[in-house]
């Protein structure tokens, strides 16, 4: 099938890269096992949500520089609310924080629509605002997380009918990731709203003329981004048990993984699977570098070089494709 888009090829390539890296990891450290894979899944979790948040807006033709700050704010909010509270109270905190991310994301979108300032500038401004708000909530790392929340991402899930040796390779963190993303992404992808998000990213004018409510769609895209970022913030609180008001390195990582995942900056193209696989690849590279005990200063060079090389390679393929 000639339509089988080039994108799928890209994702398949990334997946092959992941498998190759996995084999390399096994060669470096023969004892690398299911427990270590669980560690990888837990490390991936906050990055994956950050990347999902970035992916939605990039597909809609925008960019969100406030992803990491949003994660910080939602994380400190959750951690400070749960500090000293009962386990059951967390049942209320989780939806509250998710709703907060959704609303703040929508505010981002509304600011872009109303002020007509380019998204990159608006989200740069909200980056400062959200950072400030996080500092007002907690001026130093602190807070707590309910035990059941922390338990949600540690260990593995026993699946009936599967031998333990396979079970062990299904860490809870991975399952949480898949469930959270699929619950939102799959229905979205199939709905008219999903199409509209791709449409405004591909050509805003054409989308408007096709009757797509451009402003509303953009706001929803940013709201979804906020929702994913809030999940990322919760993931941070779940894995560390605290909230930290200073944003982590998730902004740059999310942009890098989005591009590695085959989502064009500029919008309209790509999916969520590619960026998520890209996150796994990047995290596994990190693991391998640690296993090899490579000079820490060299790792930055290698990570940067991988990013540049892979993107240049992608650009090169596209160019070749266009020439034919």
């Amino acid at each position, binding site marked *: 099938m000639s339509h089988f888009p080039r994108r799928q090829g890209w994702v398949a390539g990334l997946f092959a890269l992941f498998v190759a890296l996995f084999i390399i990891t096994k060669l470096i450290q023969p004892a690398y096992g299911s427990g270590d894979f669980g560690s990888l899944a837990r490390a991936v979790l906050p990055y994956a949500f950050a990347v999902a948040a970035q992916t939605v807006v990039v597909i809609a033709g925008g960019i969100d520089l406030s992803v990491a700050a949003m994660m910080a704010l939602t994380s400190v909010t959750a951690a400070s609310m749960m500090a000293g509270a009962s386990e059951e109270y967390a049942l209320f905190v989780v939806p509250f924080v998710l709703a907060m991310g959704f609303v703040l994301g929508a505010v981002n979108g509304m600011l872009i629509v109303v002020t007509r300032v380019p998204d990159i500038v608006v989200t740069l*401004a909200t980056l*400062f605002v*959200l950072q400030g708000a996080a500092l007002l909530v907690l001026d130093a790392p602190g807070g707590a997380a309910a035990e059941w929340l922390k338990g949600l991402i540690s260990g593995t899930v026993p699946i009936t009918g599967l031998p333990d040796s396979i079970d062990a390779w299904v860490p809870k963190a991975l399952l949480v990731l898949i469930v959270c993303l699929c619950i939102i992404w799959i229905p979205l992808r199939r709905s008219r709203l999903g199409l509209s998000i791709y449409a405004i990213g591909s050509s805003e004018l054409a989308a408007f003329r096709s009757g797509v409510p451009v402003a509303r769609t953009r706001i929803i895209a940013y709201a979804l981004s906020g929702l994913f970022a809030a999940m990322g913030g919760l993931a941070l609180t779940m894995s560390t048990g605290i909230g930290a008001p200073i944003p982590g390195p998730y902004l740059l990582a999310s942009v890098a993984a989005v591009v590695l995942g085959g989502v064009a900056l500029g919008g309209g193209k790509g999916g969520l699977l590619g960026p998520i696989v890209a996150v796994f690849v990047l995290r596994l590279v990190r693991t391998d570098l640690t296993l090899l005990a490579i000079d820490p200063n*060299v790792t930055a060079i290698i990570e940067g070089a991988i990013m540049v090389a892979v993107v240049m390679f992608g650009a090169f393929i596209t160019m070749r494709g266009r020439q034919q």
Partner: protein
Amino acid sequence: MSTTAITPVPFGRRVKRFMADRPLIPLVILLVILVVILQILRPGIVNERWIANTIKFAIPLAILAGCQTMTMLTGGIDLSVGTVATMSAFIMATQVVNQDPAVAFLLAMMPAVLIGLVNGIGVGVFRVHPLIMTLGTSLIGTGCLQVYQRTVIASGAKIPDFLAWLGTGLTWGIPNALLLFVPLAALIVFTLARTGFGRLLYAVGDNERATRLSGVQYWQVITALYVISSVLAGITGLLYIGLIKAPSLSLAEPLVLPSVAAAVIGGTSIFGGRGGYTGTIIGALILTVLTTLLTILQMPEGARRILFGLIVLFVTAAYLRIVEER
């Protein structure tokens, strides 16, 4: 379609149109307002010394924002300027211990040229998105700098007197840095307005296909542009080390996001084809004064950041409104 204005245009609209035709005026007005607020909050602060300080700190920001302005005109962005400036500053400070200053200078500018070249080739030839390309090279550059730091830990660092004089010195109350900045700014403004290269930057940012049909070789323009941007960043690094007098591995990084903000506030379109350097200079001044203003205000750090973000957003939005009036 010519219209003859039959009904008298209301005063408000006239003012708006006047400002829209001269987009620098609202920016200057905003700058003055900020200074006045500062003076009201802290009577006496606006004196010769304060002005000199503000200019000293605005200059490195303004040069880096110049890099952003030029790259943004072509629809790009250069996020590696922070790393490049830091590298040249750090290399200068460590090499000057054992080398002739001229040699140290050449060594310091080498990574700048190299990173600019790689950026230019990535963006111009391979068509990698500038955001990703410059982010990648800045990661690589930071890594290299850290490896380099290991090799020079023993030799220590020194700030050449000339750079210290340029960075911090005053002559008759006027910062010496202006000696570097004024010609540089004039050169950038002239390049953008009155040279073929400047024209090409605007045209490429506006419609790349059209320029191709007119015989423009995109990669040449882009490569030259990113090399120039990097060299400017390198020079900024040298100036900045003269001002701060303490080499560190993240010296100029904090200037990167503000440099983008300064260019945007100054009216340069992030999508390319529109903008100029004069606005950017005022944008840099506005940000510098704003930082002072927020430092002076006694409020929690969190609230200060919120205010900073809101003001940047508000200024950009208001400015766009005014300019769109055209």
